[in-house]
């Protein structure tokens, strides 16, 4: 069957790249540090980008307002974690999770709820028209950012990492930050559940069909409206989760954080092939790794490493590594 053919080349890119740079870096422990950190960074980027890939891949909506949900998730986390100081101060990871988990849930819930409003008032009138999507969601981004300032103030708010998630795991001379390991786990969970939903259920098909011809999908007896809302809410909730992860990584949050990561997310999406979940993962991992490798080998070039990576990938595959095939 054709659909079972998996295109392995892009997936192979990640290990191949890591092995190719090994001789240049020389020291094994440095290589290990850089690689693990890069992969973990990639996972965090994937989490914040996943919602956008979902919304774009399924609904063909180019949501420049995605960043708002990221920022919102992070701000909600500051409030929740701030109220649960007892649990974050404990040195035990499990106790910390008692605080972090509800923070994630709250962030996802609030971001998802805002997603509901966003879909209704911002996105619904512009399905099928990219230019208007860009404009109106940009407006949404600005409004959201300003509202965050109204609620939480324009200042940067610290979001300290819970005690048990601090520090590093030492592997010889190589250090792997604990938090990055947690990010990898969360990222894999997100990736796995997305992939499962999209390939093992009819939902993915339905939504893609709905984008092309919504009337026909309704004529087949499916209520597409609710599905669209559902996808948008899930996408926003994922962004909220991404915001928590990102905020904890930076250990502080600013209202502009959403807009700050926009270009990065878009680069990941382009590399991945707009809308492909696996592509977004590959893209995010590559971005994470390349940033670290160039940062170590030729720091001057690190500024442009993302763009260079994107260009290289596009020369190889003009539509991104996976062109809309999930």
């Amino acid at each position: 069957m054709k659909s079972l053919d998996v295109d392995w080349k892009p997936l192979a890119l990640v290990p191949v790249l890591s092995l190719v740079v090994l001789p240049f870096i020389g020291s094994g422990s440095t290589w290990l540090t850089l690689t693990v950190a890069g992969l973990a960074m990639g996972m965090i980027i994937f989490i914040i980008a996943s919602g956008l890939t979902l919304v774009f891949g399924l609904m063909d909506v180019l949501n420049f307002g995605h960043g708002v949900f990221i920022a919102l998730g992070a701000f909600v986390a500051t409030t929740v974690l701030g109220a649960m100081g007892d649990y974050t101060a404990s040195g035990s990871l499990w106790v910390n999770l008692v605080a972090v988990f509800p923070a994630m849930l709250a962030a996802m819930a609030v971001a998802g709820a805002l997603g509901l409003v966003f879909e209704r008032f911002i996105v619904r009138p512009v399905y099928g028209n990219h230019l208007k999507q860009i404009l109106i969601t940009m407006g949404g981004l600005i409004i959201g950012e300003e509202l965050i300032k109204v609620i939480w103030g324009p200042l940067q708010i610290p979001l300290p990492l819970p005690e048990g998630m601090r520090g590093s795991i030492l592997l010889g001379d190589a250090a792997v930050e604990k938090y990055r390991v947690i990010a990898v786990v969360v990222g894999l969970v997100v990736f796995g559940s997305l992939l499962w939903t999209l390939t093992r259920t009819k939902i993915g098909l339905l939504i893609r069909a709905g984008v092309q011809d919504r009337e026909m999908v309704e004529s087949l007896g499916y209520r597409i409206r609710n599905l669209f809302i559902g996808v948008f809410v899930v996408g926003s909730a994922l962004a909220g989760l991404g915001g928590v992860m990102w905020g904890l990584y930076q250990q502080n949050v600013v209202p502009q954080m959403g807009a700050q990561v926009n270009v990065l997310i878009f680069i990941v999406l382009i590399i991945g092939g707009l809308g492909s979940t696996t592509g977004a993962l590959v893209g995010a991992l590559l971005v994470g790794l390349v940033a670290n490798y160039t940062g170590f080998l030729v720091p001057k070039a690190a500024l442009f490493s993302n763009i260079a990576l994107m260009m290289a990938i596009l020369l190889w595959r003009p539509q991104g590594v996976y062109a809309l095939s999930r």
Partner: protein
Amino acid sequence: MTTDLLTLSGVHTHIGAYHILHGVDLRVPRGQLTLLLGRNGAGKTTTLRTIMGLWRASAGRITLAGRDIGALDTPRIAGLGVAYVPENMGIFADLSVKENMLLAARSAQRLAQIDGDRLQWIFKLFPAVEKFWNHPAGKLSGGQKQMLAVARAIVEPRDLLIVDEPSKGLAPAIINNMIEAFGQLKASGVTILLVEQNFNFARRLGDTVAVMDNGRVVHAGAMKDLAEDEQLQRSLLGLAL
């Protein structure tokens, strides 16, 4: 004794500022094939879309199996056992033929849950569907798309099948298959409402016929009366067929 599965009485439809249907009265008897004829722009497609809830009737009453469906939304109407093949075929171009079929099979989550025998029957009628099973549907030829559109509508049994011009762009051989298919469906008790320009096609299938002009039904009766009466054809359709 036949009852009417679908009835329209005094249906008016507006599209934007335009008043398109001016009081359509139509009866579709259960278990029969009803043909809707009329010149370009007479309002046939608009009538079908109004039945499906894709346009909302501004006045009048539409009933399906005795129940008023005028206020229901499209998914709901489809859920009552109505399959629809639109004029533009409504193919999901980016999905494969298989995925198009799977979506049409509402009760199936996976391919394996679709009735195999029925699928084989469809493959036999419309060989292109099987041949291009895993291809993107957008790459099919014009006629192949038309086959897929009809195949999709019949992948699961439905009570009422509404089809808008299924024969356009089809090779004569496939038109024969299409006639065959509608014949078999009718035999299995499906009610069919068909819009068709190809009168030969129409003549071989129709039980009853309604002719539209200017947003109204101007003639309704048995197919054979119309088929035999050239005078009537000329006055209703503008030419003898």
